[in-house]
Structure formats: C-alpha cells, structure tokens
C-alpha cells in the first residue's frame, strides 16, 4: 500500500559533504509527524527536500525519489510553484512580509488570481482562526504584520500557509524562537488541525515531539536511525542511539 509521502534512498550533498545518507521514510495522509535528532543531523535538510527548497541553495545535488500523493516531486515536469502551493512551509524565524496582516494572509491567494473580496475576507478569518491568532489581530488586520510580537508573527505565517489550503505543512522548528506561551498556542493549534493536514514538524524539543506527534523519526549524522509510532519511539526504542538521545545522554 502506498503512503501519502514516500521517500526512497534520498542522498543529498552540499558540495562534497553528504548530508543525507540514503533516507527511506514515508508518512501516511493526515496526522502529525515529528523529526527529531541533534543539530546537523539532516532533519531540516530532509524536510526541505519535500518541497524542493534545497533547489535554491547552490551546490546541492540530490539523488533518490520523493513522491507525494503518487506524484514524483523531482520529475522534470514538476512545477515547483505548484508543488509549493500543495506543500506549505513554516520556518524557524517568523518571516512575515512587510505588509499588513490581511495582505500577508491573502498573498498566496491573490498570487493564485483570487480577487473576490468576500472570499478573501472569509479565508483570512478562517485561516487566522485556525492559526489561533484571530482574536488578537481581528481589529488590526490592516496594520503591518511586523508590528506584531514574534509569537503572533509566527501564527500569522502559519495562517498564510493555511490560507492556500495545502495538503502538507512542513514546519522547521517553528517554536524554537518563541516563548513557552506562544509555543503552547502553536502546539494546540497543530493538534486542532491534525485531522485535515499531513503535518511534518522538525523539533529540538523532545517534549514537544512526544506531546503532539503521532509518529516520530530519529535522525543522526545524516541517517534515519529509527521511525515509528511516537509512543513506541519514546517508550521502547529499538536502537541504542535512539534510547541515548531521548533519555538525554547526548545531543
């Protein structure tokens, strides 16, 4: 049976350096998947192969196959613009555009050619509500997104991704630059939308992974050590390295 996202034997090189050493990993449709591992283990790099963000970095070469919903992501026929509409991404640092909150959230839609004011308004409210930031910004939608706090900015960035209704949401350490309260809000929000999206989150925070994810994959030195149900990874890891990492003996 085919999984929603399937990656086979993914190798990735930054110049000479091999950053991913043959990753075989798949994710079912819907639910939250956590990628954990120490810094430099390749988890962010792996995440970025899924929407081809690594294409932007000069000197990167990649082999192996990545399929999302049966589509070969690295086929020459793949339109990266279309791909990234289906596979949204949230970054470590909040990166709102220097425009109003409203414009930020509608950006993807308006680029896609949607002009209907009513539809845009609806989508803004819906996305901001999903991202758990509506109550805080509903009266200041036309203020610059840069005037918000870091936590609010990050949730607006998530709303910006949700607005285009992607299938997959990639989050690259989305809460590591935020305070615990904002992080908690984002975790709750992810739990609330887990049934509608395939979510893959890179995190350094093991508690976060164990709190919110359904499945967890552990990366070390560019290799996938172990993956499975989160409960199992945290309670009965099969590999010693996994056990050492989650019990804090290194990393």
């Amino acid at each position, binding site marked *: 049976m085919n999984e929603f996202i399937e990656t086979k034997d993914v190798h990735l090189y930054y110049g000479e350096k091999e950053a991913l050493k043959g990753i075989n990993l798949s994710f079912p449709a819907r639910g939250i998947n956590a990628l954990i591992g120490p810094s430099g283990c390749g988890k962010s790099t792996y995440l970025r192969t899924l*929407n081809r*963000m690594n294409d932007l970095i000069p000197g990167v070469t990649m082999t192996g196959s990545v399929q999302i919903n049966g589509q070969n992501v690295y086929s020459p026929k793949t339109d990266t613009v279309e791909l*990234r509409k289906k596979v949204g991404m949230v*970054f470590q640092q909040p990166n709102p555009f220097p*425009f109003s909150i409203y414009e930020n959230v509608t950006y993807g839609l308006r680029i896609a050619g949607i002009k209907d004011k009513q539809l845009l308004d609806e989508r803004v409210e819906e996305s901001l509500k999903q991202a758990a930031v509506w109550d805080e910004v509903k009266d200041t939608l036309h*203020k610059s997104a840069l*005037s918000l706090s870091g936590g609010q900015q990050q949730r607006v*960035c998530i709303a910006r*991704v949700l607005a285009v209704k992607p299938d997959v949401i990639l989050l690259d350490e989305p809460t590591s630059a935020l305070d615990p309260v904002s992080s908690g809000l984002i975790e709750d929000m992810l739990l609330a939308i887990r049934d509608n999206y395939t979510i893959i989150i890179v995190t350094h925070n093991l508690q976060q992974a164990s709190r919110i994810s359904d499945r967890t994959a552990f990366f070390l030195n560019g290799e996938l050590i172990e993956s499975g149900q989160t409960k199992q990874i945290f309670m009965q890891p099969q590999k010693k390295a996994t056990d050492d990492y989650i019990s804090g003996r290194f990393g």
Partner: protein
Amino acid sequence: MKTKVENQVALAIIRLIAILVVVILAFLLGDILLAGVPHISWHFLTAPSQSFTSGGGIGIQLFNSIYLLVLTLIISFPISLGAGIFLAEYAPKNFLTAIVRMAIEVLSSLPSVVVGLFGFLLFVVQLKMGFSILSGAIALTFFNLPLLTRNIEESLAAVPTLQREAGMALGLSKWRTVTRIILPEALPGIITGVVLGAGRVFGEAAALIYTAGQSATNIDFTQWNPLNSASPLNMMRPAETLAVHIWKINSEGVMPDANAVSAGSSAVLIIAVLLFNLLARVLGNALYRKLTASKTN
C-alpha cells in the same frame, strides 16, 4: 593603568578628528551661505543671465540643472534597477559576473573630466548630437549608473534570505518573489540612494562642460513643444547648468557683478544639494515607517 591611558588618548584623538571634520564643513557652508544668500532673490532665481551687464539671474541655468537631472534619472534608473536585480538575485558567482562587478567599480572611479571628454568625442562629435542636454544626460548616466546599481544591489541584498524563502515556499515564482516582496522591502534604501545620487549629479560640472555645453540659450517658458528649439523641454539645445555657470563666471566672467552672481549661484547650489540630502533622509525614514508601522485604512 596603561591601557586606560591609551584608551583615553585614542578617544581624545578620535573626538578631535570628528570635531575637525564638522568645523571644516561648518566653515565652508557658513562662508558660502553668508556670501551668497544676500544675493538670492526671486529675480535672481528666475531671470536669464547677463554676459556683460549686471543684474543677471540664473533662471535658465537652474531649470537646465533640474531638467538634466530628471533626464539622467529617467535614463539611468531603469538600467541600474535591472542590473542591480540581476546582480543581487540572479547572477551566478562566476568569472563573468566578477568582471561585471569590476567594470562597475572602475566606471564609478573614472574622473568626471575624462567622462566629459569621452562624451564630447563620442556623442557631441561622432554622433553629431552637438552640445546638448541629451549628450549631458548620457554622460551623467555614466556616473550615476555604477553608484545607483551598487546601491540597488546592496539594498536588495540587505533583505533577509528568509523573505525569499517565505515567498518561494508560498509558491511564488522567483521573479514574483523579487518584484513583489524583495523590491518593496528594499525600496526605502533604493529611494535614499537615488536622491543622494541626484544631489551628486546636480552639482556635477566637469563632465558637463564638454557635453551639455557652456551656453544658456534663451528659452521661452511659454513654448512647451519639445521639438521647438526654444522650448525648455528641447533635448537637443545646449544647456549650461548651475554648476557649469559657476565655473564659467569664475574663469571668464566679465559682467560687473560676477562675484555676486557667483556667490549667489554657489549658495543656491549648496542649498539644493543639502535639500537633496535632507529629502533622502526624510523619504527613506517615511517609507520605512510606512512599511513597518501601522497603516491607516
């Protein structure tokens, strides 16, 4: 104890140098303005200049300076915008772009009188454009182009990579990311650079002596057809600018009030350049605030 003394000595010297710079500037500005401002009047700013009698103004020169500046910007801004975007966003790091960068650097360090003579030989003589505003504008473009390109490239490069990733990750093409996100964000820096460059162009004389010429033909401010030779908008007429006028009065001026005209013109030029600097700051800050702070609607 020794490092403390060293620190204080260094600090004292640096302060002294800073004060010296400010004093020199203040002295220069004070001298020029004190000598010139009393001669500035509405008549002085609008009347045509006189070659042999006193009471001449700088109206035509002032208009020429502004018109030349506008033309220069119209020619140089689109070119440097394209070049800046290419260098900041698209240029691969290879031998060819290294040469382009170096060419820009060399171009920006060419002495203005050399650019002027080159313009004279190529545009005025070879291409038979004569001493004209157009020849002058192209010569000034040579100057402005490297500065402006560099400024635009740097303003674009100063926008964090995260913004590019945000755009791309949202499914924007590279071109749209650059034009719809990166460019607006870099705009305050770009505008500041354009206005500062404009100040420099406004005060340029050496490159214009041989290209836009040293004579201010009488122009008819009621005739706005650019093809009419008396029209202020005619690009093919010779046009002495304010800076060239100052140079000319001081080297061969025979009117009885040459000193007064020179002082007044200098003051006007300095005030204009100061205004450009002030405008650059105000515009840059205002744009930055508009982008980052609250909007009214």
